[in-house]
């Protein structure tokens, strides 16, 4: 497997932990390349013909496909293995983090570097995080197990690398690269100014932006303290100047008309319908007139065929990505208009998911990321 870049604060696996993590990676590569495609064979070979025979027509949408495909033994077996592989990712990484945490915590305390960290214990963890652990990371983003805990951030960094099978690159920052490349293609001469990254988690995206745009002032917010603590020391280790703070993107403490650019990297699909509206309202409030909002997220249902649509939603039903389902249907232009953005200045760009040398995240080159863009 592709080797991940390991900075000073990285939870370095020992021999058997690394072997276990590499097995999970290779197992998932096998599932994606050799097992997943069989779902098409099962569907077109027997599920669709049986449906057509009973109903005299093909399934009209992904919901009808769901009813029959979830009964197919091939799909069930793939699905079980995919789910198990996801659980194995976290288990294999938690071993390393549990073993190395005292050392990582000590290093975090004395780490030198740029940037700041501001925590606010009064920030409530929203229901869309506490209801279920998103993508099955036990304890999710927000659980503290020891004082000044950075564990969930460390687990996230290695776990998401394995999840993407290295598809985000050695620095795990592919999404930051994709959005930044798009930004500079569309607005080559724009002054970067003050940037806010919403739902930053451990700052994978914003650290890349900060490295590429030395003139910018970079702020990164999240509701969860453990990932912010880790993100802060990780940014220090990588020499990036980022100001991390514990804030809910639905209601931040940035002043009105004070920000040049608001960005997010796959945030919206992990928040509720109400939260998305609140986040857009907040973006509108804090942006300067002429300021820019760019939210990169996962594909919407749109023009996907019933089968494709069903397969894309595997994560919703099997990987605790419950809120992705509603984003797939949402009219985001209406949300933006309601937040106060001029309809003429709102656009959904379909952005190439390739970030380097034909490399895309998620081992699937056949999709684009929607970027919801608006100027105030």
């Amino acid at each position, binding site marked *: 497997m592709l080797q991940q870049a390991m900075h000073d604060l990285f939870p370095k696996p020992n021999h058997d932990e690394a*072997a*276990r993590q590499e*097995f999970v990676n290779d197992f998932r590569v096998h599932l994606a390349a050799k097992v997943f495609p069989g779902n098409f064979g099962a569907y077109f070979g027997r599920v669709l013909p049986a449906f057509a025979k009973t109903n005299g027509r093909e399934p009209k949408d992904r919901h009808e496909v769901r009813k029959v495909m979830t009964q197919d033994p091939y799909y069930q077996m793939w699905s*079980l293995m995919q*789910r*198990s592989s996801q659980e194995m990712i*976290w288990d*294999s990484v938690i071993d390393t983090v549990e073993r190395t945490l*005292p050392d990582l915590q000590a290093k975090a305390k004395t780490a030198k570097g740029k940037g700041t960290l501001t925590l606010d214990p009064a920030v409530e963890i929203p229901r869309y995080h506490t209801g279920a652990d998103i993508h099955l990371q036990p304890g*999710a983003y927000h659980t503290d197990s020891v004082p000044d805990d950075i564990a969930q951030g460390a687990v996230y960094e290695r776990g998401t690398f394995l999840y993407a099978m290295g598809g985000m690159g050695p620095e795990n920052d592919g999404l930051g690269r994709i959005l930044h490349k798009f930004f500079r293609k569309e607005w080559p001469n724009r002054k970067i100014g003050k940037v806010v990254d919403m739902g930053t988690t451990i700052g994978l995206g914003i650290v890349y932006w900060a490295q590429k745009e030395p003139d910018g002032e970079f702020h990164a917010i999240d509701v969860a303290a453990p990932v912010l603590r880790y993100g802060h020391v990780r940014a220090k280790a990588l020499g990036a100047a980022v100001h991390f703070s514990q804030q809910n993107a639905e209601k931040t403490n940035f002043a009105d008309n004070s920000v040049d650019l608001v960005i997010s990297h796959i945030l919206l699909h992990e928040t509720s319908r109400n939260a998305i509206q609140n986040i857009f309202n907040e973006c509108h409030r804090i942006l300067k007139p002429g300021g820019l909002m760019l939210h990169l997220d996962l594909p919407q249902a749109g023009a996907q065929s019933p089968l494709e649509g069903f397969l894309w939603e595997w994560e919703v039903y099997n990987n605790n990505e419950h809120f992705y389902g509603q984003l797939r249907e949402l009219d985001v232009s209406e949300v933006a208009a309601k937040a106060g953005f001029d309809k003429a200045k709102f656009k959904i760009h379909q952005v190439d998911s390739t970030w380097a040398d034909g490399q895309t995240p998620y081992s699937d080159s056949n999709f684009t990321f929607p970027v919801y863009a608006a100027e105030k």
Partner: protein
Amino acid sequence: MADAPKKPVKLPRTAKGKKPIYFDSVTDKLLSMVLTLMGELSVTRDRLDTVERLIEKHALFKQDDIETYELTDAVNQIRTERRAAYIARVLKSVQDELESLQQQGESTNTEVKP
């Protein structure tokens, strides 16, 4: 005085949220055990590979010596026994069912009623 040993860190291990059932609860568990075993065997094989490479690096013997290793009758006997025990261990649940079927068979054939 030595420091008291620190309590090991315990992080959450089970994701919060409803777990889907794919076949049935028992089959799902069994299959996930098989996948875990698959992983553990891979881990062991990687460790053995590291050991073999270190042995070669330090010139104790060569990896090729393993490939050309000739089995003596005595070693063959030891391995055969060990392999049979291993197969029986992994397939114990099948053996258990077979045993209980035979027990039932015996009980229906006997004239002694409980």
